[in-house]
């Protein structure tokens, strides 16, 4: 299993080479891989349909409980077969559709990587492995949507899709970490058996909401539905793949997967059923009033995703069976229809239904399969779409709650769904021959027709013999979702009942709506204006706001003024020290003025006087001189406390500094006072507070002195072990020689730096 998935990534890596070697046939050659995988997955079918589930484990980062473990049961196998089966048709289709495109080699890399990620996602048993593949689908689909990357819109909408799905993905990450904590395991196969524990855990509500956020963004539920139609910026094979079997179904897959452990609560039912129903209706409504070929199909995908979410939320056995049947039906007809859309574009140059009409005679084969798929979309007997729709209506009418609302949405959706199916299945093929941008010269090539033909035919075969589907896999899949075996079955004919009546009614009403399509669209023009305030607007506002906030905060914080940076740093220091001292009630050290001697007072007086003079004087020279006197006085303090060496060093440094400063002074422009007095007072305040704070801190430390100093050791060992009577020298060159070594290199570095600073520019100009 691991090798199956790895093989895709490996083949993806060499795809450009394969493409170069095989040229026109590259689609077929690379298509062999998904075909082989399809067969491989089929080999699991007997075991899985008899109710087994298989877990395969490879260690990855065992210390973090991350493994590459895979779970093969009805649900994951259904998805794996769809991903690899439809994947085969997509790759071969793309080989022809993008034949002339210069980046076809790169396209294969990304689409195969995407396929591998999707397979990993649906097969993963480990939560982190699942998340890894989940994010990989986001990234690879970003690269696919932005495939025409020199087009500004393609980049923009690729980013939009990425931002929405990855944003949801981050919520999902937090959600699954909590799920693992609540369920006591990182393996789905264990968590799913622990449903009761999870549902009663304190984290149930937050983890549920986070996971739903992840699933809803990925599966384009209202209000996140806007990114999906925009993703049509991708080449048509990508749209076909993303919509039929993969990307957008990932969220639905997750909901279905986690149903045994998260489902069955009121909040689960209410949230999923309502969001699903609203999404379902919104999707079909927007599809009905769109005219772009891909747009209509994209919105009808939103409808399907809403339906699936709603059914999983309803959660009865019928509903889950309906969900799985609907999933299969939708994948088949939607894959076929998108590929047909590509043929329309490829052969007739038509991207809008209004441009099309009467193409039946020019593209007879395409038309036949398109109509077949559209019938399934509309839920017309005897297609598989009909079976699924009947079951869906039955499930909604038997829902454990909210029957009124859900039924209303379901009936409306059924009606509009028929109308949309009519748009897709009638408009391009019948009626007067429209002037398409290109006149179709011939039927589409085999590589492009194979997909629609097989997928649409399967819709008919499963419709006529639903037992093929349910005994094969649908029952097993529904059982995985329910977490228990399923007794129900699929049937074409349920007898004359309410769902059948609704179906019949919706056929008539939908047909009428299609007949009045033009008028209906015009009557609904207000929707465009309403969309101005829709969630997509919100997305763009949010992005603008993000940039605005970042620019604002950067202007404020990183404003370019060094003095401001210094003030913030110093004030923060004082603040942290002050607040902490307050909180911990640190005792302030005491000063013993009575011990002060006369010469010490004199030194203090000189220090204060020099300091004040340096601050207040308006002459640079005066300030430098005052600083010098400050330094010499400090040297005096050292001498007074018998640190003669340090005192001498201080005197030398001060002298040198003053001389250098004076030399530089003559090259500087005149003295300017740029700060207002208010600012100077503020700065003085900060300086005084900080200085005072540090002084108090030193006093407290001196009072506290908790331990004897190591200097006693230096005093004792200096002569016997260090062979020197000058303790400071021995400390510098022996006890702590490494410090001195470091400082020597500091000086050398400074010399190099100064040399480079002075000479680099001069030499560079020469």
């Amino acid at each position, binding site marked *: 299993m691991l090798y199956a998935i790895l093989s895709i990534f490996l083949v993806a890596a060499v795809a450009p080479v394969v493409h170069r070697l095989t040229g026109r046939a590259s689609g077929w050659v690379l298509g062999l891989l998904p075909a082989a995988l399809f067969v491989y997955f089929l080999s699991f079918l007997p075991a899985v349909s008899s109710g087994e589930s298989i877990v395969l484990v490879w260690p990855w*980062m065992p*210390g*973090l409980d991350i493994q590459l473990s895979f779970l093969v049961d009805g649900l994951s196998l259904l998805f794996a077969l769809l991903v690899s089966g439809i994947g085969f048709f997509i790759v071969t289709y793309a080989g022809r559709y993008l034949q002339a495109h210069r980046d076809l080699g*790169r396209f294969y890399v990304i689409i195969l990587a995407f396929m591998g990620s999707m397979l990993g996602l649906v097969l993963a048993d480990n939560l982190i492995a699942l998340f*890894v593949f989940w*994010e990989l689908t986001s*990234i690879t689909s970003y690269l696919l949507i932005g495939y025409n990357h*020199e087009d500004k819109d393609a*980049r923009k909408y690729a*980013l939009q899709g*990425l*931002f929405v799905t990855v*944003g949801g993905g*981050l*919520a999902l990450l937090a959600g699954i970490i*909590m799920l693992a904590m609540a369920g006591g395991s990182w393996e789905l196969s264990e968590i799913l058996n622990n449903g009761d524990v999870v549902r009663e855990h304190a984290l149930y509500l937050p983890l549920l909401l986070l996971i739903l956020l992840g699933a809803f963004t990925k599966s384009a539920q209202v209000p996140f539905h806007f990114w999906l139609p925009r993703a049509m910026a991708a080449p048509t094979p990508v749209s076909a793949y993303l919509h039929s079997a993969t990307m957008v179904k990932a969220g639905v897959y997750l909901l279905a997967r986690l149903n045994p452990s998260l489902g069955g609560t009121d909040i689960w039912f209410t949230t999923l059923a309502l969001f699903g129903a609203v999404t379902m209706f919104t999707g079909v409504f927007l599809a009905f009033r769109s005219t772009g070929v891909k747009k209509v199909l994209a919105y009808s995908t939103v409808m399907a995703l809403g339906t699936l979410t709603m059914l999983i939320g309803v959660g009865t056995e019928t509903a889950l069976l309906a969900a799985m049947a609907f999933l299969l039906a939708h994948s088949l007809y939607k894959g076929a229809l998108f590929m047909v859309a590509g043929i329309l574009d490829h052969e007739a140059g038509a991207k809008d239904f209004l441009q099309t009409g009467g193409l039946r005679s020019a593209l007879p084969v395409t038309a036949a399969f398109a109509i077949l798929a559209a019938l399934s979309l509309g839920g017309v007997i005897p297609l598989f779409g009909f079976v699924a729709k009947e079951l869906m209506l039955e499930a909604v009418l038997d829902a454990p709650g909210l029957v009124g609302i859900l039924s209303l949405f379901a009936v409306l959706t059924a009606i509009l769904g028929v109308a949309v199916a009519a748009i897709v299945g009638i408009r391009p093929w019948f009626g007067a021959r429209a002037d398409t941008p290109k006149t179709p010269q011939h039927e589409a090539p085999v590589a492009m027709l194979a997909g629609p033909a097989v997928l649409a035919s399967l819709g008919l075969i499963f419709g006529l013999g639903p037992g093929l589907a349910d005994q094969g896999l649908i029952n097993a899949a529904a059982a995985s979702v329910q977490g228990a075996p399923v007794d129900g079955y699929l049937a074409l004919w349920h007898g004359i009942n309410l769902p059948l009546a609704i179906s019949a009614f919706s056929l008539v009403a939908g047909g009428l709506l299609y007949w009045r399509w033009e008028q209906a669209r015009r009557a609904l023009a207000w929707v465009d204006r309403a969309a101005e305030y829709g969630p997509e607007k919100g997305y763009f506002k949010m992005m603008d706001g993000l940039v605005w906030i*970042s620019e604002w*905060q*950067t202007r404020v*914080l990183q404003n370019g003024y060094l003095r401001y*940076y*210094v003030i*913030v*740093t110093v004030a*923060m220091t004082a603040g*942290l020290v002050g607040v*902490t*001292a307050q909180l*911990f009630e*640190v005792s302030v050290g005491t000063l013993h003025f009575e011990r002060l001697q006369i010469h010490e007072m004199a030194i203090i007086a000189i220090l204060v006087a020099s300091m004040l003079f340096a601050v207040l004087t308006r002459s640079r020279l005066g300030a430098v001189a005052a600083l010098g006197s400050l330094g010499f006085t400090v040297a005096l303090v050292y001498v007074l406390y018998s640190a003669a060496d340090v005192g001498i060093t201080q005197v030398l440094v001060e002298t040198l500094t003053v001389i250098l400063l004076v030399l530089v002074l003559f090259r500087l422009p005149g003295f300017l006072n740029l700060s207002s007095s208010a600012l100077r007072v503020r700065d003085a305040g900060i300086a005084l507070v900080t200085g005072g704070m540090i002084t108090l*801190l*030193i006093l407290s*430390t001196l009072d*506290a002195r*908790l*331990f*004897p*100093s190591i200097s006693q*050791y230096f005093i004792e*060992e200096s002569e016997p072990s260090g062979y020197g009577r000058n303790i400071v020298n021995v400390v510098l060159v*022996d*006890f*702590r*020689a*490494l*410090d001195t070594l*470091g*400082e020597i*290199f*500091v000086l*050398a*570095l*400074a010399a*190099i*730096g100064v*040399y*480079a*600073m002075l000479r*680099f520019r001069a030499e*560079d100009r020469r």
Partner: protein
Amino acid sequence: MNMSVALPVILPLFFGALSVMFWRSHFAQRSLGVLGTGAMLLATIWLLMETWEHGHVVMEMGSWPAPFGIVLVSDMLAAIMVVLTGIIGFATAIYSLSGIGKMSEKFGYYPLLHLLLAGVNGAFLTGDIFNLYVWFEVMLVASFALLILGGERSQMEGAIKYVTLNLLSSMIFLTAIGLTYGLTGTLNMADIGAKLATVEDTGLVTVIAMLYLVAFGVKAAAFPFFFWLPASYHTPKVAVSALFAGLLTKVGVYALFRVFTLIFNQEVDYTHEILLWVAAGTMLTGVLGAAAHYEFRRILSFHIISQIGYMIMGLALFTPLALVGGVFYIMHHIIVKANLFLISGITFVMKGTHELRQMGGIYRTNPILGVLFLIPALSLAGMPPLSGFFAKFIIIRAGIEAEAYWVVAVALVVGLLTLYSMIKIWAEVFWKAQPEGVEGEIHDVSSGPMIWMWIPVIMLAMMTIAIGLYGEPIYQMALMSAEQLLDPSQYIEAVLGVQE
């Protein structure tokens, strides 16, 4: 006596001095550059192996017994840090063969490089708080000289801000050392830790901890002390930017990790709560700064800040898993960040600018570079299965387990915004067509003298992937360092011997 802990400091000092002697020979400088950093890389790997085996490797300088002399100590964290220094140093040296230019070589680029690395390694390995200050000085002066190498006006402006703020930090650090010495009478960090562990009145100790917080916060470019970094990192030669981006701030982070586990572990509820706020602020301001910019290196610079936040968050949460996450994050970040800067150097050679708006079309002309960019860029944004994902995952998981939900939320949002910035660069530099009226490819980078620039980029990208695909050893190393950090008595015993 185990020399392995001294070599990572001695070797670069030696090669630094040696290349000063061959001041005028470009050939000698370049050879010594690669040779010296290569030797240092091997030495650091040796040290890592020794540390892995023994837990701690200690060496007393001049054989003066601790706590009186200076000790070099390697625990797992320090060993990891020096190996990363070795990797980045070596990568930079190779890159510089093509990327630094004759003029910089003439004015001491290679000696400065060696000595900067010596300073960085010294800071990681020293067990003495004042000696740490000395290595900070070495780093500061070396980095200042590297920063102004090139003599551009913007470099000067950036360097002045850099030096002023870092000197301020040094001053605060020195004050803190003085106070610590006054309180404990010792400079040996293990000794300080051991002594402060017995103190009952922790108020004054916590106040002094605040000074260290500020001093190292400035070095680490944490909020609200980060101003020097965006002011300077986009100005020097790209190789220098990459070196700084990889290593310098991480020394500050390392110092925070060191003192806030070994020394200041008395009032964790207070000190680490502050660190948590600092972490959140750092993550947010950094990523917002990046969102506001359209210059390749400025964006990357602001992201350094933002990711320092993740590391500090690992320290602040102060659970075993969180520290694992922090250390893992540091490892991942150094490799990825340096690589992104190196890539910006290649695109600069191609386009002659760092302005995103004037670049474009590289994915068309040079898809390999596109892939090489995507690997570290997506890793930085925490996308699986690259190194950054696991780093982020561990920290997020630790945050949730510690019930620090608000900071987890910040970290997640910041992750999304990081992706936004990286995608911005990707879309503008690689996907977009070359804008009209702007000169196209200036230099061919795929052959000739520019070939050296590719080697480190490829090397670091492979490491990013390797950590993602086979991260268990990295995790085990991070785990061991976290266990050591949370049990300071191991460090103290290794340095001072068993105490009763």
